[in-house]
């Protein structure tokens, strides 16, 4: 079978370029310009997939983004395969391989098809009802559901394609390149406005471009000829950007839109190599024109889902645009004039339409009369009641409608066919309008929701059929008239065109067509992708669901990847009919972005791998790498974690580093600590207000540890601040807190205390910090700066000196986070690596040992120093941390002070920081482990471990924990229950090592 359904006269398919492709492993060919769907139809392949619940055979039903059935997997490369692609949208390319989804083992023989025969057992809410009970069976149900259902397969390897983001600013964005979009873009660009026109197809002109019929004329030309000239003119306009293959996915507030441009999905893998696959446009437009068109509605009757049942306008596009006959024996079923256009197109291409079933009693349009005259049989006031055929439609039954349209009368007539076109009128594509916050109004005479121009949130306008104008004359006249007002245009040559349109608007709407059988014996599908029927909706209403949002979720109507583009209106209509409500009062369900699915690749763009987030490295980073540091991520920073030697484990390295730091000398890169330069005549007063302790009396050249709270009294950050001069301080913050502390301080300065003359500048990156600790630290500093007086009298603990190392200015603070005698050297970052290397060189004879964050944590835990964010979690006051000494009781106010004596913060049974020793000194607790007093059930949780290490300097395990009423419980035995053992611990003081602080001055 090879392209026997292809006709040879058309302008859009290049029949000189043959393209071979595979569908379910079978080699086929089509032509340049085909979509996968048109090529499959040309090969007489309708059956492309199985439905989600009943696994019913399903065929190509449409020619666009609303396609519910023809959803395929493209390719089978584990990193490039693409699931859930609509065959109606993907352009054919050489080597394309497509596979049916949702069928096993094959589309022609499907195991799940048995569900079709079980369908009486699978009603609305089936998933909720069946899989609810018993709960223990859920895993089995889930396995069953996942195995037999599923929409495509995700790639298993990382995506190798490139994606791009681009920002764009335009005066006017026109969405949709059909006739109304073309005219809008032309008027806008001619006015000199910077305009962008996007269309999701690879051509412009919408359905007008293939409307070659003398029933539709503009200025005495067939409409396709006229629009072609308009497009040629359009392309010459300099201030117009046209993007084809670009679909707007989201319309946010303030005219911010996201559009995805497909750059190479239509190319063969050879042509794609190395190029960008998709570009996500982030567009701000001063004004937006929505010209997204309309989608034809299906008709709802029993077994309306068989392969070969296709929307009438799609049949027309397949024949007129692609030159593909969707069948040899086609009939049409309609409630409006659109099907007659299709009949004329088919006739012209030599396909005889057997019969047109029209539920209207009559139509007086020129078009329908012309069809009637051509000899096509028309059954007026009739309806299709059922169809037959399994993998393809074979026949359909019709009966006469009663006068009120509520039932059928007379005898059943059966017609054979291989394709049935259906047309239920048109639904404006208002998705983008409502996404932007626009509200819809209901037009009763033809049952459509259209944009309410009085409830439009931003500078935008809907035109053409997306605004409810479906006929050529209305589309052109209203578009030109409304765009003229919208853009403030003068008179233009698109006004007063001579338009001939031979259609009539008259339509007879019956949401659910009657049958000769009771509804329980019929299968009138509403949502083809999710297999929900009109029966399901009625059942949901009987079971008490009233809100349309609930009915939608209960029946899953409109919840597929097509977002119910075909099904929503009918579902609403049936609800309105059944409940006796006006559709306008019922409203619609919410349309959410994206309008058509977006790839994750397009969303993330280039922000993958090492570009996912910034990486911050200290100025000494290269030295750490060279010396085999293992790194730890602290926020965006890479910090050395430990420096393993000769194949040491982490534990071994940390034990060695910790011992060396206490026995001789250790050196730490502390550059990541936040540093804020504070200047101004009120700097001291400012510090008084932000820290809990007193600052006014701190002498120049001295350092002080400070604790910062939130207004709720909880510890927020801590660090040492040094007074460099009368009105000049340098504050250090935790690594993770740096940015937030600066913002918080700025907030207070700008909003609460604008009277203070204080300036804050972050200098975290400008200065690097290295901390040298241990009993030999003094000797090392002496070697580097021989001139510096390091005596305790001249340079005591908690003081600072300016100095020079090899002519490099540095600030040296004598401060300690380890409890050892130690110095912190701060230098401008571009000298840091050199200074660091001088320290290492000078320290060689003392076995100076570089250590990382793990050893730092261990050493400070030995001293009971907290790490905010590890030992605190935003629920601990200074008192909870046993740090009452740092509260400036004499101070009138500071951030958080009032909260320290709220009824809740003065409770004695708050969780409080304590030390823990394990009865077995070798047993190291897990951080996060729970503490209990007794194992009798129910077990009461008293607190948890916040820090835990094996201390090589004490030769035992130590831990910090927060425990309810912990301050009073010193000496108490508690239990840490673990998975396979219970560990006995005793509450102790938080300081484990050198309680008298003798080593600071050693």
């Amino acid at each position, binding site marked *: 079978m090879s392209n026997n359904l292809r006709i040879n006269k058309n302008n859009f398919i290049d029949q000189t370029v043959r393209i071979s492709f595979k569908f379910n492993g079978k080699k086929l060919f089509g032509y340049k310009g085909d979509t996968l769907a048109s090529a499959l139809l040309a090969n007489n392949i309708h059956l492309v997939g199985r439905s989600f619940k009943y696994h019913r055979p399903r065929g190509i039903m449409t020619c666009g983004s609303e396609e519910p059935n023809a959803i395929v997997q493209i390719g089978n490369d584990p990193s490039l395969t693409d699931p859930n692609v609509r065959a109606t949208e993907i352009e054919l390319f050489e080597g394309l391989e497509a596979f049916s989804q949702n069928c096993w083992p094959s589309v022609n023989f499907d195991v799940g098809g048995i569900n079709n025969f079980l369908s009486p057992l699978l009603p609305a809410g089936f998933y909720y009802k069946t899989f609810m009970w018993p709960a223990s069976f859920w895993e089995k149900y889930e396995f069953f559901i996942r195995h037999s259902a599923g929409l495509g397969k995700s790639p298993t390897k990382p995506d190798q394609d490139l994606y791009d983001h681009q920002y764009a600013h335009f005066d006017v964005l026109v969405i949709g390149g059909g006739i109304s979009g073309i005219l809008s873009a032309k008027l806008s660009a001619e006015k000199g406005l910077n305009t962008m026109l996007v269309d999701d197809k690879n051509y412009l002109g919408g359905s007008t471009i293939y409307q070659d019929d003398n029933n539709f004329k503009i200025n005495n030309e067939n409409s396709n000829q006229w629009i072609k000239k308009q497009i040629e003119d359009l392309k010459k306009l300099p201030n117009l950007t046209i993007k084809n293959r670009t679909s707007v996915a989201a319309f946010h507030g303030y005219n911010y839109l996201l559009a995805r441009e497909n750059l190479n999905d239509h190319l063969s893998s050879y042509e794609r190599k190395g190029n960008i696959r998709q570009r996500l446009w982030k567009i701000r437009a001063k004004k937006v024109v929505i010209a997204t068109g309309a989608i034809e509605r299906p008709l709802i009757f029993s077994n309306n889902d068989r392969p070969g049942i296709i929307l009438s306008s799609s049949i027309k596009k397949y024949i007129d645009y692609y030159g593909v006959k969707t069948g040899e024996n086609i009939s049409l079923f309609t409630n409006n004039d659109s099907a007659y256009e299709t009949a004329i197109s088919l006739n012209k291409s030599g396909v005889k339409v057997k019969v047109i079933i029209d539920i209207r009693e009559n139509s007086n349009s020129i078009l329908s009369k012309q069809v009637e005259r051509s000899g096509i049989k028309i059954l007026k006031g009739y309806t299709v009641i059922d169809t037959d055929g399994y993998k393809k439609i074979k026949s359909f039954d019709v009966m006469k409608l009663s006068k009120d349209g509520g039932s059928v009368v007379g005898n059943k007539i059966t017609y054979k066919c291989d394709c049935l076109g259906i047309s239920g009128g048109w639904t404006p594509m208002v998705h983008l309008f409502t996404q932007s916050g626009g509200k819809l109004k209901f037009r009763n005479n033809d049952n459509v929701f259209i944009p309410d121009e009085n409830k439009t949130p931003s500078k935008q306008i809907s035109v053409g059929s997306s605004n409810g104008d479906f006929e050529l004359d209305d589309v052109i006249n209203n578009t030109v008239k409304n765009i003229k007002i919208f853009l403030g245009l003068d008179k233009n040559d698109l006004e007063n065109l001579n338009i001939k349109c031979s259609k009539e608007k008259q339509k007879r709407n019956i949401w659910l067509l009657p049958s000769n059988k009771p509804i329980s014996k019929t299968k009138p599908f509403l949502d083809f992708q999710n297999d929900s029927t009109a029966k399901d909706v009625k059942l949901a209403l009987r079971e008490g669901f009233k809100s349309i949002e609930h009915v939608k979720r209960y029946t899953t109507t409109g919840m597929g990847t097509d977002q119910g583009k075909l099904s929503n209106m009918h579902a609403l209509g049936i609800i309105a009919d059944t409940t006796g409500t006006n559709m306008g009062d019922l409203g619609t369900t919410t349309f959410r972005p994206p309008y058509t699915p977006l790839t994750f690749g397009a969303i993330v763009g280039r922000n993958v791998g090492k570009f996912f987030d910034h990486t911050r490295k200290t100025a000494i980073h290269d030295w750490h790498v060279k010396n085999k540091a293992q790194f730890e991520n602290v926020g965006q920073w890479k910090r050395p974690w430990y420096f393993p030697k000769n194949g040491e484990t982490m534990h071994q390295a940390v034990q060695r580093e910790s011992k060396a730091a206490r026995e001789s000398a250790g050196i730490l890169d502390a550059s990541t600590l936040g540093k804020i330069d504070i200047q101004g005549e009120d700097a001291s007063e400012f510090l008084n207000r932000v820290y809990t302790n007193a600052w006014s009396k701190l002498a120049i050249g001295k350092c002080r540890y400070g604790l910062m709270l939130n207004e709720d009294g909880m510890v927020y950050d801590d660090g040492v601040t040094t007074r460099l001069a009368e009105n000049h301080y340098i504050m250090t913050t935790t690594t993770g807190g740096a940015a937030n502390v600066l913002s918080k301080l700025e907030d207070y300065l700008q909003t609460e205390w604008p009277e203070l003359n204080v300036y804050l500048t972050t200098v975290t990156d400008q200065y690097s910090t290295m901390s040298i600790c241990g009993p030999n630290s003094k000797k090392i500093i002496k070697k580097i700066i021989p001139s510096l007086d390091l005596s305790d009298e001249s340079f005591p603990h908690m003081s600072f000196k300016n100095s020079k190392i090899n002519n490099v200015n540095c600030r040296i603070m004598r401060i300690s986070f380890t409890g050892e005698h130690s110095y912190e050297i701060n230098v401008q970052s571009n000298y840091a690596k050199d200074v660091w290397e001088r320290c290492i060189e000078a320290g060689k004879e003392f076995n100076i040992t570089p250590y990382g964050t793990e050893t730092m944590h261990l050493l400070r835990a030995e001293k009971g120093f907290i790490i905010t964010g590890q030992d605190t979690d935003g629920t601990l006051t200074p008192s909870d941390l046993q740090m009452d000494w740092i509260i400036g009781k004499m101070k009138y106010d500071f951030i958080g002070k*009032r909260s320290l004596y*709220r009824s809740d913060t003065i409770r004695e049974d708050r969780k409080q920081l304590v030390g823990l020793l394990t009865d077995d000194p070798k047993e190291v607790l897990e951080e996060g482990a729970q503490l209990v007093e007794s194992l009798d059930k129910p077990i009461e949780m008293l607190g948890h471990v916040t820090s835990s290490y094996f201390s090589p300097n004490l030769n035992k395990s130590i831990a910090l924990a927060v425990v309810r009423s912990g301050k009073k419980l010193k000496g108490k035995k508690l239990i840490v229950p673990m998975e396979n053992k219970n560990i006995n611990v005793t509450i102790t003081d938080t300081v484990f090592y050198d309680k008298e602080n003798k080593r600071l001055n050693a």
Partner: protein
Amino acid sequence: MFIINCPYCGERDQTEFSCGGEAHIERPKQPTELSDDQWAEYLFMRKNIKGIQFERWNHIHGCRKWFNVIRDTSNDKIHAVYKMGEKPPIKSL
């Protein structure tokens, strides 16, 4: 995503700003003289209105200045932007 007219820089994308919650809640001058309830009123109670809300915003990825915004939270329409310390240009809507 909306556009905010920073009183110092002009119109910028929302992504450059961060919201600091309800505006015009002044930190009490004498917290120690407040009862627990009065302090709690300042500390915890914030409005979350569907409709017109007075908010603090910070041009955090720009000039880093704080200012006030009157925004309709139901549709993100911004009715006014004014500097810290200034009186709202609109009393109520």
